[in-house]
């Protein structure tokens, strides 16, 4: 068995990125993700990579854009307000089909909000945020080991599909500590760069752009993007279930709330209530069909989130009957407690 290390979530994701071969990190200070910038400033030096503290999140994402268009593995991290500022760049990266990993360690909003954990950027991550028809592959880890595993996978998928992958976690996951094991430092996968800008030695010059003025060309470009997103919908859906198969009451949650709901399911089962959990790991693509199947078997569904009700819209959309769906949520840094969830489930029955 691999040796485990006790680290916080922000360090777990940083080291996982290094292990995946990320050698270009651009970031800007913002709480609660500051462990990433400080860790990367040391670690990139050790592995011969580039750490650069940008002048803004606008600059960070555009530096990622620059490194990514050479075919390099590049990443930036931030928290909610900073991710808002990056939306322009995220749209351009999507338009140019560049591989990159963007991490949002969410905090309370809107506006400056606070620095407490939150899940209120679900809409921004899965429904857009920036302009234009584009998608991000969005992973929502629920444990620190999942942060490691899905960060590593994020680099793989970013390269495979030439698109951005977002890790959506929250301040609590970033700050808490758990033992994790890291994959071996490996150069086992590198990105194809037969599309990248590297200087036109022994080949025709290339350009990377998202402007398509000629009639019909932008629509063709969009169709090809949608085709790629369709392929991802087919192949990349990930989810987790816990005692869901015979669940009379089905809890649904992502990220940290998934842990809380697992506990709540155990307590409810102890009370003789057949509860189960459905937890999407990819928020986009959303595991809709699987959920529809599970929803048919359950009498009541609750969606538990640290926001005012965002994923619940997808849950209602895919549930066999949206009238079954209830919502349990806290905002502004509030975290639903297990007893709160249990009470809501039993009280509302």
């Amino acid at each position, binding site marked *: 068995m691999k040796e485990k290390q006790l680290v916080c979530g922000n360090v777990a994701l940083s080291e996982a990125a290094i292990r995946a071969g990320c050698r*270009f990190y651009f970031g800007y200070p913002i709480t609660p993700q500051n462990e990433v910038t400080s860790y990367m400033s040391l670690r990139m030096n050790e592995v011969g990579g580039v750490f650069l503290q940008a002048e803004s999140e*606008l600059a960070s994402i555009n530096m990622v854009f*620059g490194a990514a268009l*050479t075919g390099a593995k590049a990443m930036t991290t931030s928290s909610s307000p900073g991710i808002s500022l990056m939306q322009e760049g995220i749209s351009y990266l999507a338009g140019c089909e560049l591989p990159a990993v963007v991490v949002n360690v969410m905090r309370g909003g809107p506006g400056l909000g606070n620095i407490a954990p939150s899940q209120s950027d679900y809409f921004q991550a899965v429904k857009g945020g920036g302009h234009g028809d584009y998608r991000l592959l969005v992973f929502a880890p629920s444990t620190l080991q999942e942060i490691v595993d899905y960060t590593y996978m994020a680099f793989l998928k970013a390269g495979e599909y030439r698109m951005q992958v977002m890790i959506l976690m929250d301040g609590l996951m970033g700050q808490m500590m758990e033992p994790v094991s890291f994959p071996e430092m490996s150069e086992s996968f590198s990105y194809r760069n037969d599309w990248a*800008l590297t*200087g036109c*030695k022994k080949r025709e010059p*290339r*350009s990377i752009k*998202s402007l398509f003025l000629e009639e019909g060309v932008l629509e063709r470009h969009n169709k090809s993007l949608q085709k790629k997103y369709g392929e991802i919908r087919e192949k990349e859906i990930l989810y987790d279930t816990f005692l869901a198969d015979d669940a009379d009451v089905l809890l649904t949650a992502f990220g940290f709330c998934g842990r809380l709901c697992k506990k709540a399911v155990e307590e409810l089962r102890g009370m003789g209530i057949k509860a189960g959990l459905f937890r999407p790991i990819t928020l986009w693509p959303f595991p809709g069909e699987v959920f529809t199947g599970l929803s048919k078997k359950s009498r009541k569904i609750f969606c538990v989130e640290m926001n005012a009700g965002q994923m619940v819209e997808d849950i209602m959309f895919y549930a066999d009957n949206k009238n079954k769906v209830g919502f349990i949520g806290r905002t502004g840094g509030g975290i639903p407690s297990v007893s709160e969830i249990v009470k809501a489930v039993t009280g509302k029955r």
Partner: protein
Amino acid sequence: MREIYKKPEALKDNITHYCPGCGHGIVHRLIAEVIDELKIREQVIGVAPVGCAVLAYNYFNFDVAEAAHGRTPAVATGIKRALPDNIVFSYQGDGDLAAIGTAEIVHAANRSENISVFFVNNTVYGMTGGQMAPTTLEGQKTLTTPSGREKKTTGSPIKVCELLSVLEGARYLYRGALSTPSNILKVKKAIKDSFQIQITKKGFSLVEIISPCPTYWGLTPLESLQYIDNNLLKVFALGEIKNTVR
């Protein structure tokens, strides 16, 4: 028969979209000539701005990226950090560099990012129809200053070279103009100097080029050249604004 004048290898044979009398074509050609002379075409990666020069990749015969409006120096930074042995330049207009991209240019200069910046200043937003730029002269009529730019409400033209000159990282700052053949040759030399500074890893350099925009100045191409000499150069001093490379 000896060929004494031809299209540089670094330029493609495309029909230009630029207006008659526009300076961009001259700047493109100067950059291409220098790239040919330095034999660096296969190492060059250019970054095109948002603005009239967004279509630069239609003309440059080497790798070109297109950046979001004003973010060109940040994109160039990412490229140069990933490929330090390639030659990276950012090509920007006055709106791109001196308005929406002010933060990016200041910090790229301050880090002394080892890139070349070619800054085409024609005192007006061309692509969007001739609005006021940060470099628009006082009294100059534009689409958004119909009675002429008023200092009291919109400030004075930004002198980018002078602004950046206080930063230690800005190693070479040159301002030239496209108003006469002799001025054009000086711009070409400055472009060459800038590339050579980058090749020898001396850090950040910027060449500002005062360039005609007959369309939005409401002048003929010839009048535009006189307008540069008679009006713009009274505000924008020509020559080496700073050189700490020597």
